[in-house]
């Protein structure tokens, strides 16, 4: 199962796409997923991340089939 990586709002525009599919891989982390999808760009300051729709930090593990998301500070309500 591939890893799905989603981008929202200004980060989606910055990436120029809504999502990536990463091939199934060894166990990894959120920071490593960002490194792979961004060609080594620095993660923009204040970026939030989620794994399987729960907030996590950059060191959180990512497993095959997980959904990882990156997005800017939220502004709902």
């Amino acid at each position, binding site marked *: 199962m591939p890893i799905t990586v989603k981008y*929202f*709002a*200004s980060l989606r525009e910055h990436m120029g796409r809504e999502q990536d599919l990463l091939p199934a891989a060894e166990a990894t982390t959120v920071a490593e997923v960002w490194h792979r999808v961004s060609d080594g760009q620095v993660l923009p300051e204040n970026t939030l991340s989620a794994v399987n729709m729960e*907030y996590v930090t950059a060191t959180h593990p990512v497993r095959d089939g997980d959904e990882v*998301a990156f*997005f*800017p500070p939220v502004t*709902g*309500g």
Partner: protein
Amino acid sequence: MAVQVCGEPFDPWQAIQSHQQNALGRLGEYGATAVFVGTMRDFNEGAQVRAMVLEHYPGMTEKHLESLCAEAQRRWEIIDTLVVHRYGSVEPGEPIVLVAAWAGHRTAAFDACRFLIEELKSRAPFWKKEALAHGERWVGRNSPG
């Protein structure tokens, strides 16, 4: 406990009436209802705003709002909660968010309602892009209140 994320304009007062009629237990059980409605203003951070697009994270948004409601139920003696939030294109004057809490007594209702809107604004995955007279801008962060 109900969470609705909707792509069309909604009437918050009708949503409350409908929830009271369909989802709440017997009349006479609750003595206090506290409600907050956030409406789109036509002015924000020094500029006229013509319209807005609200983006969200389908799936995570609902999950996050449901976990907030569950936490409110744990922390206060409340009977029920209702959260409705718009996404998509919004015009000035249209409601964006409704938060309501029903309780036996007013302090629990007020505190749960306030908790829900503060948590929602700080953590629920929504993003606002404003259309100004000239051009667009993403809202960088929510004002403190």
